[in-house]
Structures are given as structure tokens and as C-alpha cells.
């Protein structure tokens, strides 16, 4: 993994590093198993939006510690809250800012990925896991339900049966089950996890940035439109990409049997 000194975007709870066009956003509240406090979510979304605007960065990786990606929210802060308190704080609104990030966001999950942590991972474009990862939406045990997209994104990812099972019982699933049910795309041994994530991120970072953006937008459309509209949206983006230098370079390099060098235009 190539990293440099912690970035100016870092806070006490979030360590940001960059290298090779990849930015790493490392959740860093070890004592709280990276519970997603409002300040951590603010730092994370601030950093993600700033990096999204930085042309040097092509891919972002959200990662936790070996022990925990993120084990939910700060329960103590919420325990005595009224609906008015919750609505006034509206910390979940912070999450909407993540949806404005256009560059690929990779959630790299090792250890506990529960509640808000699982919702954060699912809010990313790509979800990969270490073999020690554990996923769950245990909110039901606290007398509530997932509130930051869990009921929606988990259902879209794994289907109704497993989503209901996990959300109604609080049952947790391991990395292997998560892979089998399509919640994550790849699982690596924890020993080599960060290396493999770095390689994956570098591989994506080497692709044409405009194509990456059109691709993530098109895939996301699949969840929000009819098939006909989605196919239209896809086709428009496909044709549109022929206006980019990177399309010319990509196809030329293919014909010349050499690696393409994409410039992001």
C-alpha cells in the first residue's frame, strides 16, 4: 500500500491518506469500534466531497480497523432522545452528502460491520470484505429499525428473504455468507486484505475517470427506474463517452495491443 503522511483532511477520528490516485479514508475511533458519531460522519463526508473535487484522486477507499469497519452509531447519545431531538439533529441527513460523491467509493470491510456501519458500507459503490468480516443490522434489538438506508439497500443487495431475516432478528452473517448472497463482491484473507484492496483500488484508478462515473451512474439507475428508462440512460452515457479523449485512447491502445493511458478527459 502506498501512503503518505496523513492528509490535511484528517481529523482525530478520520485518517486520510493518498497515493497513486487512491485516497484512503480510515475510520479511527478504535475505543468505540468506529461507531459513527456525528463528528466522524461530518469528517468523512467533508473529506469525501473534497477528494471528489480533487483531480489527482480517482478512487476513494473507506476502511476501518482489522477489528471493526464500524460497529454502528453512538447509542448513548440517542438513548434519551425524542423524535424532535432526532429530527433537529438530523444526523442521517449527513449521509445524503455521500450520494453526491461521483468518484468510485470502495467500502473495505474487516471485522464488525453493524448497523450504521453496514449502512455506510452499502452506501458505497463497491463492497469488499476480509474473511473476518461480520455484517448485521441489529437495530431491532434496541427497539428501532435501520435508519440510514439499511432496509432499502440491504434488500436490494441480498433480496427480501435474507434482508427480512437479518433485520427482524438482528442475525449477523459472516463474510462467506455475504459473498454468497451478493452483499460483497470479493473476500480476501485478513492477512492480505489491505494489499488486495490497494490493488483493486489501483486497478480501478487506472481506468478512464469519465467512464467510471458513467458506469456508477448507470448501475445506480438500475435501482431507481424502469428497465426501459435505465437502458435509455445507459445508452445515452455510452454514446456520450465517444466524445472523450479517453475513449479514443482506450480503443487505440486496444488495437495497438498496449496498455491505455487515460487522462480523465
Amino acid at each position: 500500500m502506498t501512503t503518505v503522511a496523513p492528509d490535511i483532511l484528517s481529523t482525530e477520528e478520520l485518517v486520510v491518506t493518498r497515493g497513486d490516485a487512491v485516497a484512503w479514508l480510515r475510520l479511527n475511533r478504535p475505543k468505540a469500534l468506529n461507531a459513527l458519531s456525528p463528528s466522524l460522519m461530518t469528517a468523512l463526508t467533508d473529506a469525501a466531497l473534497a477528494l471528489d473535487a480533487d483531480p489527482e484522486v480517482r478512487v476513494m477507499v473507506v476502511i476501518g480497523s482489522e477489528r471493526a469497519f464500524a460497529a454502528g452509531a453512538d447509542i448513548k447519545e440517542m438513548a434519551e432522545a425524542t423524535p424532535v431531538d432526532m429530527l433537529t439533529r438530523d444526523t442521517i441527513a449527513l449521509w445524503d452528502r455521500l450520494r453526491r460523491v461521483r468518484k468510485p467509493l470502495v467500502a473495505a470491510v474487516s471485522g464488525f460491520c453493524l448497523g450504521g456501519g453496514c449502512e455506510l458500507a452499502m452506501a458505497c459503490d463497491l463492497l469488499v470484505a476480509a474473511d473476518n468480516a461480520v455484517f448485521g443490522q441489529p437495530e431491532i434489538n434496541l427497539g428501532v429499525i435501520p435508519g440510514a438506508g439499511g432496509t432499502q439497500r440491504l434488500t436490494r443487495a441480498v433480496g427480501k428473504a435474507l434482508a427480512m431475516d437479518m433485520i427482524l432478528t438482528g442475525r449477523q452473517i459472516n463474510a462467506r455468507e455475504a459473498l454468497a448472497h451478493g452483499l460483497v463482491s470479493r473476500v480476501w484473507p485478513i492477512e492480505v486484505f489491505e494489499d488486495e484492496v490497494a490493488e483493486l483500488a489501483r486497478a480501478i484508478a487506472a481506468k478512464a475517470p469519465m467512464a467510471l462515473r458513467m458506469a456508477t451512474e448507470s448501475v445506480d439507475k438500475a435501482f431507481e427506474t424502469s428497465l426501459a428508462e435505465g437502458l435509455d440512460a445507459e445508452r445515452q452515457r455510452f454514446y456520450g463517452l465517444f466524445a472523450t479523449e479517453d475513449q479514443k485512447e482506450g480503443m487505440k491502445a486496444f488495437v495497438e495491443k498496449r496498455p491505455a493511458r487515460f487522462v480523465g478527459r
Partner: protein
Amino acid sequence: MSEAAILPAPTAPYTTLAVSVDEAVACITLCRPDKMNAFDDAMKADLLAALKAVERDPAVRAVVLTGAGRAFCSGQDLQMDPDKANDLPVGRMLREKYHPIFEKLRSMPKPVIAAVQGVAAGMGVSLALACDMRVMASETYMTVAFIRIGLIPDCGATWTLTRLIGPGRAFELAATGDRLSAEKALAWGAVNEVVPSGQVLEAAMQRARVLAAGPTRALGLLKKALDNAIEADFPTQLLFESHMQQTAARTADFAEGVRAFGEKRPPQFTGA
């Protein structure tokens, strides 16, 4: 001196185990000799806590598991009212109390050797089989006795037996509950070494000392790779090996191994 006086006594904070660490080897002794080291709730909690402690302790680089007295371990303590036997929540007890112990034995990245100095019965067999290697006393035996009370092997014994000795022999032992002698256990591959009674602990400790002087992290990776091999297909295992090997290649012990090889001297591994 009576025989009881020379038996190891439980060491705090445990009430059912004696744990000692010597030359980077932790020895965990089950200490309920009057109950043939049968597991009660305290021993389940103690053993899980002890395994976690030796896993965390960087001074420990190998583990020996043995029993005090005549038995290695006679399994679950069966004292109960027969009229209530059918109400026993066995499944839940296994999942909640026993499985964490057995999963810890497999996931611990340090070698664990069972010193089977006396009889292993029922879950006691499961316990010995869940370790990485076994040294057994020539005069003793194992019995997968579950079927004799109308149960089937648990705590992974159906899994470990099948893999260690094959399905045909596993069925024979589990379906009859017959005694498996040390001699046959060795011939079948259920144990690694048989020595005269009284020398088991020392033989196991000797093996553990050799392993404890080895490249500990590589041994942990080896353990994980072998466990993975049991279930993986060949291409998957090749990939898995490459991941474990990449990790091993980053250890200080690998650098020392290469250096010692070049200098034609024995390596001095530190476990780092």
C-alpha cells in the same frame, strides 16, 4: 505422598484449570481429576478464557493441552435427572458454550498439541481431535462414546474424525463407541505419536518447545492454510496459499531464515 497431592492444582484466576508458561510453551491442564475432567460450566468458561489469554500473550508460541489424573477428558458432565434428559437444550448449549472453545482452538494462530495422557471419551475425543497434533499414552484409549447414550458425536468430532481417519473408520468408531487403542489410533492417523504412559506430557512438551522455537507467524498461517485446504478446490487453495505466503514473506522470521540459510547456520526465530 498421596497420588492426589502430586496432581496439578488449579491456578488463579481459574478454578478448573492449571495454566503454566515455560520456554514459550503454555501448558493448560484440565483439573477436575475426581470427575475424569468432565466439563462443567466453570470449565467451559475457564478453557475459553485460558485459550484467549494464551492467544493474546506474545510470550506464548505453542500450547499443550492435557488432563490431570487418569483421564484426559471424559466429555460433558452427564449428571442429570434422566426424566429431564429430553428437555436438555443441548443444541443451544453446544452453540453458546462449547463452540467458542472449539472455534478458538482452530482460529488461534499458534500450534496446539493435545497430550492425551489418559482416557478421552465423548467430547474429550472432540477436544483432542480439534488440536493440531496429538501425543497419546500407549496404555490408554479413546472412545467416541456418544452413541452409547443415544447421542451422536459433537463439538466437531464428526468433522475432525472424517478428515483424520476417513468416513468408514469414523462411522465404525462413532456407531459403536468401541475403544480405539493407542496403537490403532496411531496406525489410523488419529494421533501423531504414542509413548509409554508417564512420558506423554514430556513428549508433547518437547514437540511444543520445538514448535515454539519456530517461525510462529508462519506456523499460524500454515494452520490456516491447512484448514482451508480441507474445503477448497485446487485453484482456490493455490490462491489462498499465495496470500498466506505473501504474509509469511513479510515476517522478520522469514528474513532471518534467508539470512541464516545464506550463512549456513540455524535460524534464530523470534516469532515476529
